[in-house]
Structure formats: C-alpha cells, structure tokens
C-alpha cells in the first residue's frame, strides 16, 4: 500500500471514530457512555505503562502512584475555593491551593507535569538499580504516595479524601487525550529513540556497548510515561468524582489492573494496550452481574462480591494460554495488516 493511501485512510478513520463516539453519546444511555469514557482513560494508562514496561524494558510497579499524583493535583486545582473550604474539615488546605481554581485543561496539564517531575525524582536514583530492584523501588514509591495521601491532611484532606469533583471528564476529554498520548508514544516508539529503547529492552549490555546511554534513555521514557499517567489520573479523578485514599482505587491494585491490560493486549504493543484497556473496562463492568443475585435454572444464587475478579482472572489465564504473548504480541495495527487479514478471510 502506498504511503499516501495510508495517510488518507487514517484521515478518514479519525473523523469516523469521532462520529461513532458522538453517536454513542446520543444513542446510548449514560451508563454505557461512561464506560466508553473509561475505555479512553484506561487506554491512556495502558499506553503510558506499555511505553515503560513494554518498550523500554524497565519494570515499573509504580504507575498507580503517578496516577494518584495526577488525580490529586488536578482535583485541587479544579475544585472551587468554597468547596475546598467545606471539604477540608480536619485541617485547612494550605495557601495558595485553597484560593485557586483553574480550567480543567490546564489542571490536567499541570497534573501531568507534577507526575513527570516525580517520575524524574524517582527514576533518577532508582533507574540505576536493575530489574527486580527497580520494580520494588517503584512499588514502594506508589505505597508511599498513598500513605502521604492518607496523612497529609492540609493538602490531601487525609482519610476523608476529595469529594464532589466537577464531572469534567467526558468522552471528548478522555478520547482526545488518548489520541494525544498515542500520537506521542507512537512517534517516539518508531523513531531512532524508540529503536534505542527497544534495543535496551532486548539486551541492555549490547545496547550500551553500541554507545547508548541506557540510564538517560530509560529515564526519559519513564518521565514521559509518568506524564501521561498523571494526565490519566486527572481524567480518572474527574470521572470517579471522588478520590478516596482508603480504598485501593489509586493503590497497587490499579497498577496490577493496568499490567493485566497491557499483558492481555501484548506487552510492548501500543495497539494492544488500547485493546487491553477496552477489554478490561468492558469485561469488568459486564461481569458485574455475577455479583448480583442470579437465577440459575430455578436456583437462586446470592451475589458473591469479588466473584467478578475471580472470573476475570480465569478469563485472563485462558487468554494467556491461547495467546501467550497477548492478543497483539508486539505488533501494531497497520492498514497493510488489516488488508491482509481480509485477504486471508476471502481466500478461505
């Protein structure tokens, strides 16, 4: 296929997706359109983590920490001073946070930047560690963030969390940011820079022997991953409308859920990360029925909470048996690939 054809196809596909999103808003009820928004948010989380864990070959377990940072940062910037006055019961919110309110877009950008700064501060010392030690360091970091969130009363409102966030996050914000994330990560991954990152993933000793400063490259990928994690955190917070540090919403469980998404989709594939995020959002909502009372052949079964995750894990295991490298492996969506899939169908 010619390069021009591909560009034209892409230019047709993007408005088409936008149209579908628009129709989904018009035709589906708010429950489903919330799930579609969630798919966008999960997509950003998964793509940013696959940049770090799938492409750069470092194994971070701290993604939820950056997401939480992003969520708190932007929530503190979008809530009105009056709301903050009412919410912060244990201690007053510190100046100047107590008196500012800025638009959602800028709050999200700042959320990304704050998360990126933290990614730099965490990555700088701990990327000198290799493999498992780095994973443990980042895991520790995300727990520390949660513990700070629980105890820094004058900034995070401690255990009470932040409530009644304005419901800014709609399909457009979520999918718009997803587009930005994918565009950035894709063009990075398929540049000389991304090639160097993939080389490091394959063999860091050889990559270094070919003149690549492994530390610097991994740090930059980690910081960019942190930036988009912060962005997704801002969106997620304003989607949930509550940030509760006592639950595991922004804790280690979230990191594991995102890991499941990217492994499901194919570790290292950006397309796979989006598919994994969509599957996860869809399945975890759909399987909710398992936790309500079920009428099975006349037997009434009471809903068992947690059943959903059990079945989900089962599905995950089955997918891993049949697609050990995830649904996409390490390949990406391409128009050529799509055409060849159809050709194969047609020949049969």
């Amino acid at each position: 296929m010619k390069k021009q054809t591909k560009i034209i196809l892409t230019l047709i596909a993007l408005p088409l997706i936008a149209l579908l999103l628009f129709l989904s808003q018009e035709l589906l009820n708010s429950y489903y359109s919330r799930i579609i928004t969630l798919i966008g948010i999960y997509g950003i989380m998964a793509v940013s983590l696959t940049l770090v864990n799938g492409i750069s070959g470092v194994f971070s377990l701290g993604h939820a920490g950056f997401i939480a940072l992003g969520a708190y940062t932007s929530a503190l910037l979008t809530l009105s001073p009056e709301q903050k006055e009412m919410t912060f019961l244990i201690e007053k919110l510190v100046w100047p946070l107590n008196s500012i309110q800025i638009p959602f877009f800028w709050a999200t950008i700042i959320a990304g930047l704050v998360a990126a700064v933290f990614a730099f501060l965490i990555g700088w010392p701990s990327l000198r560690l290799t493999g498992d030690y780095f994973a443990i360091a980042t895991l520790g970091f995300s727990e520390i963030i949660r513990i700070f969130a629980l105890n820094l009363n004058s900034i995070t409102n401690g255990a009470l969390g932040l409530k009644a966030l304005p419901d800014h996050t709609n399909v457009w914000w979520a999918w718009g940011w997803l587009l930005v994330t994918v565009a950035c990560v894709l063009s990075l991954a398929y540049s000389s820079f991304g090639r160097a990152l993939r080389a490091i993933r394959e063999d860091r000793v050889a990559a270094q022997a070919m003149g690549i400063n492994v530390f610097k490259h991994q740090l930059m990928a980690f910081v960019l991953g942190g930036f988009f994690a912060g962005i997704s955190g801002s969106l997620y917070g304003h989607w949930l409308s509550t940030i509760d540090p006592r639950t595991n919403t922004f804790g280690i469980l979230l990191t594991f859920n995102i890991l499941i998404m990217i492994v499901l989709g194919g570790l290292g594939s950006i397309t796979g990360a989006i598919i994994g995020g969509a599957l996860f959002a869809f399945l975890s909502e759909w399987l909710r029925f398992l936790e309500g009372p079920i009428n099975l052949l006349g037997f009434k079964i009471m809903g068992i909470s947690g059943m959903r995750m059990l079945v989900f894990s089962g599905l995950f295991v089955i997918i891993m048996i049949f697609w050990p490298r995830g649904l996409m492996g390490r390949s990406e969506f391409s128009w050529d690939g799509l055409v060849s899939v159809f050709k194969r169908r047609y020949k049969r």
Partner: protein
Amino acid sequence: MSLLTLENVTMKFGGLTAVEDVTLRVEESEIFGLIGPNGAGKTTVFNMVTGHYKPTAGRILFRDNEITALQPDKITRTGIARTFQNIRLFKDLTVLENVMVSQHHTIASNGKAVTWFFKSVSRLGYSEKEREMRNKALELLSVLGLEMLANEKSSALSYGSQRLLEIARAMATGATLLLLDEPAAGMNASETAGLVDTIRRIRDDFGLTVLLIEHDMKLVMGLCERIMVLDHGRTISEGVPAFVQKDVRVIEAYLGREWVTVGK
C-alpha cells in the same frame, strides 16, 4: 603513538586472577590476534577495554587518552566497538534496525538527547536524519553481504550471518577500532574463508584497526599481523605469527608440557 595501549593491566574476581599484568599495544590499522586456551582471560581483556569491567590495576589508553573504567557507552563514542563471543543481537529487532541502533548515539549524545527526544516525539526535522541512518546501515549490510536479509528479524538469521551482523552493528557505531570476540565460532569452512576476506576488506576500505580473539589457528595465523598469547591470565608470547607458532611456551600451553618434552 599506539592506537590502543594496555599498561600492566590486572583483573581479579575475588580470589581468581583472570588477567595478570598484561601490557599490550595495538598499532593503527593492524590486525592483531589475541589467542590462548579457554579461560585464559581473553574476553576479560575485551571487557576491560570496553569498560564492562573495571581493571583491578593498570591503565588503558586509546589514542593516548586514558579510558580506564569509563562507561561502556562513552568508550564506544570515543571509537572502540566490539562483538560478543556469545552473540548478543537485539533479537526482536530487524537486521536493519540492529545496525541503525548503533548510529543512534551520533544524534543523542553530548546533551543532545533531550532535544532529540522532543524531535522524535514531534517528528520535526527528523525524517532526513532517519533516511541518512538507513542508507548508511544498508551500505554496511551490503559490505557484509546481508542486504537481502535487512528486513528479517535478527533472530531468524543463521549462526554465521548473526556473527556478520554483529560486525556490521559494531562498525555502524563509527568506531575506528573493532574488537571481535571469536568471530568465526560456529562458522563452517567456507564461511570462515569468507570471513577472513571480509575482515581484511573492511580494514582496508574503512581504515579500521582490528583486535580479534579466535580459536581457529589457521584463521589467526593467516589473518593477523601480530599475535599475543595469553595463558592463565599472563602473556606468554608475543610477535609475528611465524614466531608465535614456534614458541615452545605456546605449544606447551596448548598441548601440555608432556607433549613438548616427548616431542623433543
């Protein structure tokens, strides 16, 4: 001025002395052989030159600049590149990508990394450089006869081709000194013969200097202009092939003391 100088270099791993008091000079544009029985310390010498190990004692100089224990990527950027005895290609990358990776440092070093990071993300002024790198990589691949395989995954190549790709990848760094660690290991006779020609040709055409480790005596004696023999980490002989070949200490090291006495 020698191109590469090792001055009284020693490498100890705990109680084990892998390399002991080795002094070595490699002159510009020569093909120098480093030989010795298994475990003699040859690969360890490479690892010290390329910065993977920090010598316990001694100095290493490249064009009279001290490079002892610099980071491996820095050493590569000063002009020394290597291949690995146990092939270490980027398996999931294509043959072409493997070679292009080595050129990355030319755009991403000296504090330019951040600039290029943003250029890659935004794609500004990027495609021209990419094309340049691609063309240079293809040229190197054709020098080594791998151009037909450019878009294959490197792990799909035959053993012999993988060894050649390691050489292409090392050359693409722009290095002037190549360290080849057993480049003929696992090659058949005709591949080995081709390799000898190739190494000579790249030395002549690209103005390179080659330091190589090899077990195949025929290859070493035919190709190298000077040879150093290591045994148990120590230099036991050094000189032109004809001299080393006849040196009693070398025959002893390779075949055992008994053989030498009986042979006499």
